[in-house]
């Protein structure tokens, strides 16, 4: 019994044109994501990882290759099965936390009472029980990002896309949020594509890491991370963890 991949990307490329100039943002991206996987996309700025995310979100069309999201066992509706988390929490300042989390449900016109119930449960899941009626400015940066994660899950999407969600946090909060994300991922059972430029973050979180290089934007590698789960912080000192990060450093020409 073999499970079909949830995302199938084959030779996907994307070129932006501004005036007469052409800019190759992504070339030949080929990788599969199994349902329930957490895949890290890692690379330097300008490697096209955000572009890939936008293609997956259906915001930008790709102009070469094939992309298929969803399978016979795991259907995918592009208009309601995508959740997004960005580097900034981007909570609406004038809405309380619960109302912020509800935004996607409102846009999709989901039943109100159920959505509120779900939003409350999600806030509890991300560790924000009791903060439902606070305004964003009353929360720290890490807590705001937790609320943003709850928002990305409120409409029960099958695929969650995260664009450097912890990039703006301090190092300690970031490590804590990494552990939190793994816990949330396990409980929520979503397929997550996680973009980062943190090599150790990519290895620590990912079931699989896709490495992208810049100048020219290119997919350099795609490999599974064979570390036990649940992941713990002391795994970062494992020999195998070091091998994975070294492999990525090498690919990015930093060794």
């Amino acid at each position: 019994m073999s499970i079909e991949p949830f995302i199938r990307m084959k030779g996907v490329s994307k070129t932006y044109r501004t005036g007469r100039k052409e800019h190759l943002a992504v070339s030949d991206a080929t990788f599969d994501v199994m349902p329930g996987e957490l895949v890290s996309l890692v690379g330097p700025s300008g490697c096209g990882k955000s572009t890939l995310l936008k293609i997956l979100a259906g915001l930008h069309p790709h102009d070469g290759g094939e992309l298929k999201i969803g399978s016979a066992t795991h259907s995918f509706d592009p208009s309601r099965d995508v959740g997004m988390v960005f580097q900034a929490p981007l909570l609406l300042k004038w809405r309380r936390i619960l109302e912020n989390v509800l935004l996607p449900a409102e846009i999709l016109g989901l039943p109100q009472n159920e959505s509120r119930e779900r939003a409350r449960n999600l806030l509890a899941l991300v560790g924000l029980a009791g903060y439902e009626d606070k305004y964003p400015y009353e929360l720290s940066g890490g807590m705001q990002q937790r609320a943003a994660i709850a928002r990305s899950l409120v409409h029960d999407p099958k695929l969650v896309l995260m664009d450097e969600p912890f990039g703006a946090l301090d190092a300690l909060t970031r490590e804590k949020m990494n552990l939190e994300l793994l816990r949330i991922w396990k409980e929520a059972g979503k397929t997550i594509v996680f973009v980062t430029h943190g090599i150790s973050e990519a290895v620590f979180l990912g079931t699989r890491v896709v490495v992208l290089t810049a100048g020219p934007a290119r997919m350099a590698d795609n490999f599974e991370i064979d570390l036990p789960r649940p992941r713990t912080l002391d795994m970062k000192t494992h020999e195998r963890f070091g091998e994975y990060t070294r492999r990525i450093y090498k690919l990015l020409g930093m060794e």
Partner: protein
Amino acid sequence: MNDIARRYVLAILAHVALLLAWYLFVALGNVPRFVMPSPIDTLNALLQPNYSWWTNISVTATEIFGGYFLALAVGVALALLFSWSKALESFFMPLLVSLNMIPKVALGPLIIVWFKYGVFPNTLMAFSICVFPILLTTARGLREVEPELLDLVKSLKGSRWQLFTKIQLPGALPYIFSGMKVAAILAVAGAIVGEFLGSDKGLGYLMLQVQVTLDTPAMFMAVILITLLGMLLYGLVLGLEKLLVVKDARVN
């Protein structure tokens, strides 16, 4: 709470101190009444029926509030129109920025030529001076949407209307209020200048009338009443802002 009470007490104290200084300056300095009346002379002017204070106040208030709310409606409506149509914005916005450079006071004589004198041209004067700050700040507020929020709405296939009502408009509200505060001060100046240029009623008109007879107490009272009208409008805007805009989102 104690801190707030202290600030109120200090504010009241400062105003009382000014009144007292004014009184002492006139009393001890033997300043003639026609140069500077005492606070008591000024207050006395309010009791004279021949100044028709109520009529004049209501005329000036009509011009200020009328011009102001007309400017609010037109300014916000135009800004909304521009946010919906890029073409309209790129065509009209540069023109409006140029028009904004016209000193509105200089339009006064023209407005009188076109509309004669009275409440309407003075309302127009207040309007013309208020509309630009409201329009420009509102347009800016509607433009300031984080691109990622746009992506979020698009990824859920949200409509243009949803983007507008859930994100753009509430996001622009603090900007609208910052424009409204600037305009509140300008509205008063606009109406009074209008009355100076040509009118037969209003506090500005009254000031010119009594100036001829060097009736300084009445002029002082008129200035105070004009200021109070301005404070009323400004206070109204501040109160509305407090009601509608979340603390952190306010633009100072």
